[in-house]
């Protein structure tokens, strides 16, 4: 047994070392930093300094509200779309399957900077292709970046484009693991395709859908690059500033690590709450 331990930890050590230095310690450290006043050197322990500021900071509530607003619209739309994509890609009637798979899955390999640049050009007020196409069907140009609602919509569209295929891949793998004979039996009993989807497919997909939903919520909660690059630092004003952007501004522009850590732990609290909720929901199966 002692020998087994030594061999096992021999294989594990490099990995655990990186884990300890770059994850475990930072998790503890940022918690401690959130209780320190970091705007003057040396830092000093001041438990209420950052947290007190956080609960009375309008910028924090603005960022929280924007993040949650994007989240409650973007995640359901994207998961619904990803489910539809996966179900239709799985259909035996589909021709040119490879082409369709490429169309939906290709955004997965596109980097954030590259796709943000394209979306900025496409949604440009005077020269963007989106407004030109809207004009050609008789709709007036929309100034996507200078008022809040269209700017939010642009971000939601961009994130959905980038991640729907990613989720469709996971859901498609789930669909393919459902045994054929379940459907054969239902078809023999003259259950319509639509009812098969509602009463067989969806319940069997539930664990996979909830995995996708939780990962998407946590991903969108950390939204940073899109408002950073597409709507330019959360503009107009701070209309699309998210928690991720607030943290970046506080931590890495103003170098106020204490306050940024408090924002980070707020995100972590939300993430833990959502994971626990999902765990509870997945336990009480119908």
């Amino acid at each position: 047994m002692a020998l087994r331990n030594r061999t096992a930890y021999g294989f594990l050590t490099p990995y655990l070392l990186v884990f300890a230095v770059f994850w475990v310690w930072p998790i503890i450290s940022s918690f401690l930093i959130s209780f320190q006043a970091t705007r003057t050197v040396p830092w000093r322990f001041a438990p209420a300094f950052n947290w007190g500021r956080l609960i009375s900071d309008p910028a924090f509530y603005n960022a929280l509200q924007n993040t949650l607003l994007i989240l409650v619209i973007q995640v359901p739309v994207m998961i619904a779309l990803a489910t539809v994509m996966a179900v239709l890609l799985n259909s035996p009637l589909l021709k040119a399957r490879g082409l369709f798979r490429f169309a939906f899955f290709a955004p997965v390999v596109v980097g954030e900077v590259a796709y943000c640049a394209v979306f900025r050009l496409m949604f440009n007020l005077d020269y963007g292709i989106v407004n030109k196409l809207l004009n050609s069907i008789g709709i007036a140009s929309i100034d996507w970046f200078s008022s809040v609602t269209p700017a939010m919509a642009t971000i939601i569209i961009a994130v959905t484009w980038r991640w729907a295929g990613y989720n469709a891949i996971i859901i498609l793998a789930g669909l393919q693991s459902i045994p054929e004979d379940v459907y054969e039996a239902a078809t023999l009993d003259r259950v319509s395709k639509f009812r098969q989807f509602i009463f067989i497919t969806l319940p069997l997909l539930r664990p996979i859908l909830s995995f996708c939903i939780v990962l998407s919520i946590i991903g969108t909660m950390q939204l940073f690059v899109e408002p950073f690059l597409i709507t330019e630092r959360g503009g107009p004003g701070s209309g699309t500033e998210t928690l991720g952007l607030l943290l970046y501004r506080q931590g890495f522009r103003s170098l106020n690590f204490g306050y940024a850590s408090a924002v980070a732990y707020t995100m972590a609290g939300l993430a833990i709450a959502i994971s626990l909720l999902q765990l509870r929901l997945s336990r009480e199966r119908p």
Partner: protein
Amino acid sequence: MSSRAANRRRSILLHLFLAPLALIWLFPLWMMAVFSTMPDRGIFSPDIEMLPHGNFLDNVQNLQRDTDFIGAIVTSVFVATTYTFLSVLLTSMAGWALSRYQFFGKGAVVAIILGTITLPYFVVVIPQFIMVARDFHLANTWVALIVPPLFNSLGVLFMRQSFSMMPHELFDAARVEGVKEWRIFLYVALPLARPTLAALAIILFLASWNNYLWPLLINSKPGAMTAPVALGTLIGLTKVSWGGIMAGAMMLTAPMLVVFVLLQRHFIAGIAAGAVK
């Protein structure tokens, strides 16, 4: 109605719905390719232009004038390659340990790894930055880009699963022959795990190639930037060539699209396993 006719109708409906959706989905990529071949006055003209021009090389030159993009690409290739090699090695060693041995603390190790999956990256990024930049003085180095992102939780679980589906008798037989454990790992287990390793390597390479936030924070000095960071600094500047930015976006994206088409199966296997977010 015969079931054949019903299938036919269903098939037409399916394609009528899916084809426009696919076109919308391809549209941003198509426009990226088109923009990358257009001069700036073409991009900012009032006409609708959706077909490629011949200006790609001029755009690359304009981009190179705005920032040293070729240098940044070299950095990105080196970093992503080294990262992928090291990460696959660390991850598969850990996955092997977790699948093959019963050892003290195994349950705790697995639980902690699982626990980090849903933890926001922002919780660790501030101390990582302080540590690497201030304590280790490693900002703007390759080490800073490669080492901190090496930890990855889902990859280990992916490798562990792959190893535990292999026949154990094989490894036990080798041990009875007196083969050392690290040799069993290196010469028996790893070759058997080739498809999983390929999937993992592709996903890790992609993640490193596209990584933006950490390189933006830690390597912001002009000569030390990765390609996405170099490109990102141009977005939002006024006197900058957008044809150049699009050419850069295309140079970042096109190789990955080729890899995706050629190795689609591995790719999809990696993502379906949730190997890396």
